[in-house]
C-alpha cells in the first residue's frame, strides 16, 4: 500500500495542504491528513493513520511531501516494521538547514490569510508554472484551512530542528532501515539542488537502496507540475526495490 503524507501546514506556509494536494498524481495511493502542532505529534498522527489504514495488510510505502517527507522518515525510524520504503518529495523540512540564506518566496502573503486568493498567490510562488493550480486545488486548500489548526511557529520550528537533528544522527549511526528515495524539483524556489542532494547523501551513508532524482521544470510540487515524470520515478523505484 502506498500512503501519501502531505506537508504545507497553516502557520508555517501560507497555503494549506492536505490529502487534496496530491491531485491524481498517484491514483492507487491512500492520502492521509496530518494533525498535531509539533513534528513529534504529527509523526504520531501519521503512524496512527497507517496502522488504522493498513491493519492486517503489508507494510506501507510512505510518500511524503515537504514536511510529510520528514514525517515519513520519522515513522520509518521509529517503526520500520510498518514501512516498506520512503519517498521524500521536495522535502525542505528534512533537508539540512545549514546557515542558509533567507528565503523571501512566501514573504508578505496577501490578506486575508488562507483565503482562496491568498493561497493562489502562495501556490503560484512555489511553482515553476501556475498551470496546475485549478479550482479543485484551491477549494481543497480553503477547506483544509477551515479544518486545520495553525501551528505556533516558535514551538513548531523548535520541534522541527530537534526532529531533523535526530534524523541525521540516525542516518550517521544505525541508518534508515528501509529503502529511501529523494525527489526534487529542479526549480523549487524554496530550496536548492544541493539541499536535496545533501538529504540524499545523509540517507545514503547507511542505506544501500537510496536514490536521488530531479524532475525538470518543476517547483515545490513536482507531483502536480510533472505528474507523468513523477509517476515514472516512483513506479521505477517500487519496481527496483530489493
Amino acid at each position, binding site marked *: 500500500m502506498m500512503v501519501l503524507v502531505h506537508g504545507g501546514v497553516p502557520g508555517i506556509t501560507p497555503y494549506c495542504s492536505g490529502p487534496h494536494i496530491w491531485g491524481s498524481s498517484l491514483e492507487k495511493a491512500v492520502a492521509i491528513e496530518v494533525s498535531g502542532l509539533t513534528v513529534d505529534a504529527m509523526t504520531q498522527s501519521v503512524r496512527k493513520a497507517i496502522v488504522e489504514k493498513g491493519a492486517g495488510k503489508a507494510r506501507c510505502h510512505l510518500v511524503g511531501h515537504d514536511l510529510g517527507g520528514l514525517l515519513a522518515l520519522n515513522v520509518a525510524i521509529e517503526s520500520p516494521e510498518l514501512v516498506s520504503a520512503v519517498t521524500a518529495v521536495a522535502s525542505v523540512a528534512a533537508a539540512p538547514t545549514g546557515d542558509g540564506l533567507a528565503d523571501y518566496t512566501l514573504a508578505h502573503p496577501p490578506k486575508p490569510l488562507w483565503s482562496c486568493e491568498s493561497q493562489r498567490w502562495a501556490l503560484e510562488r512555489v511553482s515553476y508554472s501556475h498551470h496546475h493550480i485549478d479550482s479543485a486545488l484551491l477549494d481543497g486548500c480553503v477547506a483544509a484551512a477551515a479544518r486545520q489548526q495553525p501551528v505556533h511557529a516558535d514551538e513548531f520550528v523548535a520541534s522541527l530542528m530537534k526532529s531533523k537533528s535526530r534524523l541525521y544522527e540516525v542516518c550517521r549511526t544505525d541508518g534508515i532501515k528501509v529503502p529511501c528515495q529523494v525527489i526534487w524539483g529542479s526549480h523549487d524556489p524554496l530550496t536548492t539542488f544541493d539541499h536535496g542532494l545533501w538529504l540524499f547523501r545523509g540517507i545514503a551513508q547507511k542505506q544501500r537502496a537510496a536514490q536521488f532524482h530531479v524532475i525538470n521544470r518543476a517547483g515545490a510540487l513536482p507531483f502536480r507540475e510533472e505528474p507523468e515524470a513523477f509517476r515514472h520515478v516512483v513506479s521505477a523505484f517500487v519496481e527496483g526495490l*530489493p
Partner: protein
Amino acid sequence: MSPLPEGRWIDVDGIRTRYFEAGTGEPMVFIYGGNFGTGDSASSAYTWSKQLAPLSERFRAIVFDKVGQGETDNPKNDDYTMAAVVRHAAAFLRALKLPPAHLVGHSRGGYAATRLTLEHHDLVKSLTVVNSGTLSPGVGTNEVVLAKPPHPAGTRECARWVYQNYSFDPNVVTEEWVDAVMLTLSLPKYQESVRKMTLEKLGSKLFLPELAREKRETLQWLDEGRLQRPVQVIWGFNDRTAVIDRGIELYQMFARHERRALFHVINQSGHFPFREHPGRFNALLRRWIESLQ
C-alpha cells in the same frame, strides 16, 4: 548458459559488425564505453549482459560491438577516432532499418550516443546517458584512479583490478566478466588495435586530440539546445572516475533546453550502475520508455 543470446553479424559500410538482439517492440540500443586499443581492459557487448534479457521482455533490446571493440572489425584506413565510432554506430542503426531508437550510452558510449543524436536526430527517440565523464564538462579522474595498475597489462589480474577500481563493490567483478574482457584482449584484431594506439601512438596523436576537439564542439551544441530529444542522466553515486558533480553539470546542460530531462542517482554504485544495481537501473529504463510511448 551464455548471458547474451546468440550473436549475429551485419555488414555496416564494409565493417563486419557483431551484435546481439532480443525481444520485440520499440528498439533500445545500448552503447558501451571504453575505446579500441586499450591493453589493460576491454569493453564488449557483454558489458550490457544484465540488461538485454530483462528488457527484451517489453522492448527490442540491441547491443552491438563498436568499431574496433569486441568482435567488430577495426576501423578502415587507421581511422582510430571517436568520429569513426559515431559514424559506424549511426550506420549500424540505419543498416538494421530501425525506427527511431531509445539510445542508452555509458561512459565513452554516453558521448557517442549524444553525438549520434546531435548528428542524426531522425535515428533517435530518446537518450539515456550513464556515468559519462567523456561527455561531461570538467576534469576526468580516470587517470587518477586507474593510474598504472599493479599488474601487467593484458592479464586477468590487471583487468580485474581495473574494473574493481571502477566499482563500489569489488565483488561485482565476476570471473565471467573478466573472461569476457580476456576474450576481447586475445583477439588478433584487437591486439592490432592495441599496437596502433600504443606503439604507433595513434592514441595520443589522433584519438585523444580529435576527441578533445569534437567534445568542445559537442558541448557547444548541447549548450545551444541542439539535442532536441528527451534525455535522462543516470549516475552511480560513488564513481571515482566520473564523480557525481560531473553528472549534475551534465544534467543541468540538458535540462536548460529539454523539459523531459531527468536526473537519477543510484547509491552504492561506481562507474557501472547497470551492473551493480541491474534491477533498479532496468526499472528506470523501462518506466522511462513507457512514459514516452
